[in-house]
C-alpha cells in the first residue's frame, strides 16, 4: 500500500502483468500437464506474486482491519502444501474446472498470507520484527516442501508423466538436454526451495526498511 498514486498504479500494473504471465501461454500451456516446473512457476506467481502487488496497489487507509497472523500464515502454507498432495495435483491437471478452482484458491490464499503485512491499514499491520518472524516461518515451510519435492524418489504429480499433447517444448528439451520427468520435478522443487525463499527474503528486507524508516521519521519530527 503506497501513498503515491503513480507508484500504486505501477504496483497494480505489475499485478496485472504477473497475472497475465501466469495465465496466458506459453506458461499456462506448459503448466497444464506438460512441465511440472512450469506449473510450479505459475503456482508461485499466483500465490506470492500477484496478491502482493495487488495489495500494494490498494489505496492507503489506516483503518482497514488485519486478520489473525496465525490464519494468514496457515493460508500461505496451505496454498503451498494442499495443491501438491498427489491426488489434488493430478486432479487439477486433468480437469479444467478444478484447475480454475486452484487458480482462484491460490490468489485467495496468497491475499490472506500477505494481508497482515501489506493488506491491513498501516497502523494495524504486524510490527516489523514480528513480520520478519512471520516471513521466516513461511520460508521454512516453503523450503521444507521444496526439499521434499527435490529429493523425493516418488513422482508427486504423475499426471505430468505422459502428456497427451506434449507440444514442441518438451520433446526439444528431452532430445537436446536429456531432460527427464525426474529432472522436471527436481526443478519444480528447487523453484520452491530457492527462488521462492528469495521472495520471502525480499519481503523481510522490506520489513527492515519499514522498521528503520519509522525510526528515521520519528527522529525528524
Amino acid at each position, binding site marked *: 500500500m503506497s501513498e503515491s498514486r503513480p507508484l500504486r498504479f505501477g504496483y497494480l500494473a505489475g499485478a496485472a502483468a504477473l497475472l497475465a504471465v501466469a495465465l496466458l501461454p506459453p506458461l499456462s500451456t506448459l503448466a497444464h500437464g506438460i512441465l511440472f516446473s512450469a506449473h510450479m512457476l505459475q503456482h508461485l506467481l499466483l500465490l506470492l506474486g500477484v496478491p502482493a502487488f495487488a495489495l500494494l496497489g490498494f489505496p492507503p487507509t489506516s483503518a482497514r482491519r488485519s486478520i489473525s497472523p496465525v490464519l494468514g500464515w496457515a493460508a500461505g502454507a496451505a496454498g503451498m502444501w494442499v495443491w501438491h498432495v498427489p491426488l489434488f495435483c493430478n486432479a487439477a491437471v486433468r480437469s479444467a474446472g478444478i484447475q480454475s478452482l486452484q487458480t482462484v484458491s491460490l490468489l485467495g490464499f496468497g491475499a490472506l498470507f500477505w494481508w497482515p503485512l501489506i493488506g491491513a491499514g498501516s497502523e494495524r499491520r504486524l510490527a516489523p*520484527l514480528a513480520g*520478519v518472524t512471520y516471513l*521466516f516461518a513461511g*520460508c521454512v515451510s516453503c*523450503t*521444507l516442501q521444496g*526439499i*521434499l519435492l*527435490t*529429493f*523425493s*524418489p*516418488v513422482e508427486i504429480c504423475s499426471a505430468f508423466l505422459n502428456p497427451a499433447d506434449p507440444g514442441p517444448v518438451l520433446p526439444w528439451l528431452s532430445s537436446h538436454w536429456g531432460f527427464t520427468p525426474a*529432472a522436471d520435478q*527436481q*526443478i519444480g522443487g*528447487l523453484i520452491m*526451495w*530457492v*527462488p521462492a*525463499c*528469495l521472495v520471502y*527474503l525480499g519481503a*523481510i*528486507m522490506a520489513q*527492515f*526498511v519499514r*522498521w*528503520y524508516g519509522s*525510526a*528515521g521519521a*520519528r*527522529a525528524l519530527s
Partner: protein
Amino acid sequence: MSTGSRRAWLMTVDHKRIGILYILTALVFFLVGGLEALALRIQLVKPGNHFLSPQAFNELFTMHGTTMIFLVAMPALIGFGNYLLPLMIGARDMAFPRLNALGYWMLPCGGFLLYFSFLAGGAPSVGWFSYAPLSEAAYSSNTGVDYWTIAILLLGAGSVAGAVNLITTTLTLRAPGMTLRQVPLFVWMMFITSILIILAIPALNADVVLLMLDRLLRAHFFVATGGGSALLWQHFFWAFGHPEVYILALPAFGMISEVIPVFARKPIFGYEFVAASTVAIALLSLGVWAHHMFAVGLGRPSDLFFAASSFLIAVPTGVKIFNWTATLWGGSIRLRTPLLFAVAFLIQFTVGGLSGITFAMVPMDWQLTDTYYLVAHMHYVMFGGTLFGLFAGVYYWFPKMTGRKLNEGAGRWHFWLTVIGFNLTFFVQHFLGLMGMPRRVYTYPDLPYWGAFNAISTVGAFILGLSVVVLLVNIWVSLRRGEIAGDNPWDAWTLEWATTSPPPEHNFRAVPPVRSRRPLWDLAHPQNCDPVLSPAVTVAPRIKPPALTGTATFIVSEAMFFLMLLIAFVFYNVSSHGGQYAATALNAGRSAIFTIALLASSGTLWLGERALDRGRQGAFRLWIAVTLALGVVFLVGQGGEYLDLLHKGVVINSSLFASTFFTVTGFHGLHVAVGLIALLVLAIQAWAGDFRKGRTDGVHAVSLYWHFVDAVWIAVFILIYLIGPHL
C-alpha cells in the same frame, strides 16, 4: 576482578569472568591447534617427507580443524559476546548467569574428551567434517570418532546454551531507551549469530546422534549395506556447516563495525544497511548448503540453482565491505593496532570472498574441491577474516578487560608478522591447488614448483608461530607494566566505555541516558547530539520475564532438532529400504490411547496455571499432580509399546524403520521424562508454598516446554503412525 581467590574463578557466574574464561580457554586451544598446524607444515615442507606417519598426519589435520573451529573460534567469539554484550546494552549481567557458567564448562569438558582420544587408542582421523562412511565403525574402528561425536555434542549443547542466553539478554535486559534499532552493531551481530546457532547446531547434533547410533548400536543410517545413505550425513552436516561459516564470521564483522568508526572518528556509514544485510546473510546461509556438495552428484538442476543462490551471498557481504570502506573514507584516521587488524581484515576477507565465488561456479568447484585452493580459501575467510577481526577486538577491548593497554609497538610487530606470515602461508596454496595438489594427503611427489611453494608456505607458518609468541609476550608484559587505560582510552561511544576498566562486578554505578546510537558521544557533546532514536516518552522499563523468552528460544532450537529427526524418518521410510514397516509393526489404535493421555496433560497443566494466576494454590497442586500422572501414563504406554516391539524382534538395528522409529520416539520420550522432572520440581515447590508471592515465571516456562513436548508428539504421531504406513 582484583578481589577473590583463584577458586572464585572456578565458581564464578559473573559474565565478565566467564567471558575471560572462554577467551583464555580458546587461547590455550589456539596454541594447541597452532602447534598441530606447524607439525603438518613441517611434514609438507619437502616432497616425500617422513616427519609424520600417514596416520599421524590424518589425526593431526582432523584435530587441527576440529580444534580451531569448535574449541577456538566459537568459544573466543562467544566469550567476547559474554563479556561485552551485557556491558554494551547497560545490563548488570546475562539473563541466566548459572546457565552461562554451565555453557562455559561444557567447553573444557568437550575439549578434554576430544583430546583424551589420543590416550584412548588414537585420535579421530576422518577430517573435521567426519564424512560417512569413512567415520563408520567398519572404516574407523578405534574410539577416536566416538570421542569426537561425544565432544561435538557437548560443545554443541554448550553453544546452544550460550546462544539462548545471549538472545534472552539482548531481548530483555537492554537499558531504558535502547531499542533494538540502536544497539551497537556488535550486539546486533551477536544476536543474529545466536539465532543462527540455535537454528543450525541442532542439524549437527541430529547428524552426530545418528552417527553414534550407527557406531555404538550398529544402526545403518549412513551405511549403504543396510540400506542407509552416506549422503544424508553430508546434507545434515552442511545444513549446519554453511551457517557455521557465518556463525564464525558475523561476530568478527561486529567487532570490525565497532573498531572502524572509533578509529576513523566517524559514526558507521549506513548502520541500517550493515544491520539488515547481516540478516540477509544469515537467512541466505541457511539455504545454500548444497554448494558444498557439487562434487557428489546431486544432479544438474540442483547444481544450477545452488550456484546461483551462492553467488547472491556476495551481495549483502559486499554491502558491508562498502559500508566499512565508506566509514574510513574521509575520516580522521588513527592508525593504531586495532584498526591495522581491521583494515587487513577488510582486504583479506575480500580475497577469501572472491575465491569463495569461484567455488560457486560448479565446474571450478569440481576441479578445485579438496585441493589446496580450498584450504587457501577457507583460511582467508576464517583466519584472514575471523581471526584478524578477533585480534582487532583483542587490542581494542583488552584495556577494558584488564585496565591496561597492550603495548602499541609490540602490537605493530605482531600485526606485521601476522600479515606477512599469513599471506606467505596461504596465498601460495591457491597456486598449489590450481596445480592439482590434493589436501589431506600426507605427502606429495616432487612435481615442478610443488616443493618450492610448500617450503614458502611452511616458512610462513613459522612466521605466524613467531607472531603468536609476540602476542603472548605482549599480553604477559602489558598485564603487569602496560599503560594504565582509564575508563575510555579510545574515546569511544558505546556504553562499555562508560564504566571503569575493568568494570566492577555490578558493571555500572548508573547507566548513562541512551537516546541515540552513540550515548557517550551525546554525553560529551550535548550541543551536537546524534539523532534521537529512542521513544519520545521514556516510561519506566517494563521488566520482561527472561524465563519465558529463554524457554521459547530453547524450544525453537529443540524444534529444529526434532525437525531433523523427522526429516530423517521420512527420508529413510519413503522408499523401499527392506525390513519392517510401520504398518506391520505398529498398533496406531493403542498408541492413540496414550496419545490422548499426553494431550490431556496439556489441558490439565493449563487449568493449573489458570488456578495459580487466580491465587488458588490448592487447585494448582491438584492439577499439577494430575498432569504428572498423565505424563507417567504416556511413558508407561510407550514403554509397553517398546516391549511389544522387542518381543516381535524389532530392535534399533533391525531395519531403517526400526532405527528411525526408536530414535524419534526415544528422544521424544526423553523430553517427556525431562518435562516430568521439571513438573515434579514445580510440585515440590508448590507444596512448600513457593508460589504464594506470585513468582510464577518458572511455572509458565515449564508449562510452555510441556506444551511443546506435546506438540512434538502430535507431529510424531501423525507422521509415524498415520502417514508412515502409507509412505
